[in-house]
């Protein structure tokens, strides 16, 4: 019997106390953000904000205290994440490090890597980017060509990474590349690169169709990395990466990307919307409520040390569709012509998110990849 279980999320009363604290912090700290800034969501970058979040103890929350963590529960961490997203907080300076890079270092890093870097992440001081995709390797990671060749005292890297979000702002990159021979996923490794201390790396902007600069092309030309840059075991890159992906796929950022539209739409529609609008609002709230339950269930699984890769794919599959549906529904309920110049809260939010929406089912694994994973979970492949 096939089954795709989502256990009820564990109760977490302490998380609800924390929630009020987070809300108060965000209300104060974000008071001056414009609608367009909020609509950037987790692409929004503000190093000072991330340091404040770190100072509150809300980065690396589940990590051991000896590495700067706070030994709190996965559900408490979840509260912080979702409150940040629902408020449109500019989290990109710490988001990737908190979500996956820090967890990866904690799991496979050397003592030195853990001791030097994790506390800095937890303080909101170390921004990470992920050097994964390449021109010929998008969904197909096995097509990775970038190679680190062993030399005296370290490695020399050659190759090109693309779509590297935030590389131009980041302090560190986790690089995925080839180190050995072997077919497909064999012979790959991960490196932890200090971008501030490494030469022979060129970072060039890839402008998005909105004009924004989040993506970069990162070119390695005989780039020397010391031996200590190796992260985890040489040749174990593929395994390390795949367990990282479940962390990337089940969080609230996989279904809340358009939530701000809903909030602003409610403001526009007022307390007594048309029957048509009320039905749409109720339906969307039901979807969000359900996804939140599923996503918190995954947080509970992570806390128990289970592997929720399949459940994460399910959350992402459903969440991305919902995120993409929201701007389409909103434009049908509020007659408007979206415009990127607008300073109207609703229009500014709708316009930017409408343009970003198609990417929701690409980033972090495409819809096709997610469905393939689910099919594998069902035993079809």
């Amino acid at each position, binding site marked *: *019997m*096939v*089954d*795709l*279980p*989502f256990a*009820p999320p564990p109760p977490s009363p302490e998380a609800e106390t924390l*929630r009020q604290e987070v809300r108060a912090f965000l209300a104060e700290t974000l008071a001056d953000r414009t609608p367009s800034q909020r609509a950037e969501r987790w692409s929004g970058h503000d190093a000072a904000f991330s340091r404040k979040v770190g100072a509150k103890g809300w980065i690396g929350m589940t990590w051991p205290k000896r590495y700067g963590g706070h030994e709190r529960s996965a559900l408490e961490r979840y509260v912080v994440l*979702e409150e940040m997203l*629902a408020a449109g907080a500019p989290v990109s300076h710490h988001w990737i490090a908190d979500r996956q890079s820090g967890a990866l270092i904690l799991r496979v890093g050397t003592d030195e890597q853990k001791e030097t870097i994790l506390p800095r992440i937890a303080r909101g001081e170390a921004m990470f980017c992920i050097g994964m995709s390449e021109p010929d390797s998008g969904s197909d990671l096995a097509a990775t060509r970038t190679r680190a060749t062993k030399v005296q005292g370290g490695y020399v890297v050659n190759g090109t990474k693309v779509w590297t979000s935030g590389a131009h702002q980041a302090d560190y990159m986790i690089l995925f590349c080839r180190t050995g021979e072997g077919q497909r996923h064999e012979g790959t490794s991960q490196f932890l690169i200090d971008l501030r201390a490494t030469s022979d790396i060129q970072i060039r902007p890839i402008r998005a169709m909105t004009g924004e600069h989040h993506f970069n092309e990162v070119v390695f030309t005989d780039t020397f990395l010391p031996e200590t840059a190796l992260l985890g075991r040489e040749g174990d890159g593929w395994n390390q990466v795949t367990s990282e992906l479940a962390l990337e796929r089940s969080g609230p950022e996989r279904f809340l990307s358009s*939530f701000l539209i*809903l*909030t*602003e739409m*409610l*403001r526009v*529609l*007022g*307390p*007594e*919307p048309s*029957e048509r*609008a*009320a*039905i*749409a*609002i*109720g*339906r969307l*709230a*039901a*979807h*969000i*409520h*359900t*996804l*939140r*339950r*599923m996503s918190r*269930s995954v947080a509970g699984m992570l806390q128990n040390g289970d592997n929720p890769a399949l*459940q994460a794919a*399910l959350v992402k*599959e*459903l969440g991305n569709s919902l995120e993409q549906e929201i701007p389409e529904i909103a434009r049908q309920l509020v007659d408007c012509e979206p415009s990127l110049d607008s300073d109207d809260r609703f229009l500014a939010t709708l316009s930017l998110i409408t343009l970003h929406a198609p990417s929701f089912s690409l980033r972090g694994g495409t819809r*096709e990849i*997610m*469905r*393939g994973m*689910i*099919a594998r*979970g*069902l*035993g*079809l*492949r």
Partner: protein
Amino acid sequence: MTESLIEATANRLFADHISTMLRAASEQGEFAAAAWREVEEAGLSRALVPEEAGGFGMPPAEALTILRIAGRHAVPLPLAETMAASWLLAGAGLNLPDGPLTLAPVTKGEALTLARHGAGWHLSGTATRIPWGRDAKSVAVLALHQGTPMVARLGPDGFAVTPGTNIAREPRDTLTIDALLAADAVAPAASGVDATAVRALGAAMRSLQMAGAMAALLDMTTQYALDRTQFGKPIAKFQAIQHNLAIIGAHQAAAGAAAIGAAEAVGEGLAMFPIAVGKIRTGEAAGLCAGLAHQIHGAIGFTQEHSLHFFTKRLLSWRNEFGNEVEWSLLLGRHLAAAGADRLWPEITEA
């Protein structure tokens, strides 16, 4: 009795006693009396009432799990209805009759008239779409008396039945009621129990039944795709089939999560928000999953012999009962709009 024990009991019982033949006979109007006796003897039909009334004394969320399993087996019995009627009667302190029960009214806007009559009561009116009305030994009726919600236990000689069905051919009958009831057959409903609460309980129950039926759909459709060969390979190897099954998988998972949330809410004073979410989310998934399951099964799935239709027809029926997605979405949407934009997120996290 732990949750897993009751689940195991229900699973075993239904696996042993519910067959395609039994479901087909039920469509023809034959009541599955032997299976019902098993259900009753195992105590499943009273799982929602306190121990002193014959229940297990388990939290409602656990008791309601039975209905998810019943949905998974397309059980052609008034189990949900008997559980709900027993809950209503026990909550009012009335004795629980044996045998299958049902409840009335269930159609929006319908009300029955309850009036004093000597030392006893007079109950009258018409209630449409009553599930299993023809087979019920008694009906738990909720009616207002001078503004107070009262529960009445109505025996089979107190009403006439005009048979009707839903598209799964489950009985959905019109009851024409004109009955004199003894004093001890009527009592005030438990605190907080009114027509809205009964509709919410019904919605939660149908949500669980639907979630179970969708789990069965996923199971049988996956198996079919692995078994059926076309173009020289199992159709499970085609990416289009894989993706359709992934979509069924995702929506049935969401339906399951939402239904369990609704079940929990039954134990939390029938909290409106999660129950609305349950009915909205399972109802939406029901049509989608039924359509895709048929698409993957092809012609064979449309035949009477194949068991697929017992599940899909129930899904297409249950989503309309105790309020369809539109009714619950409207309720929820109006509530959220009235609360206002800045309360939207708090409402969701607090529900």
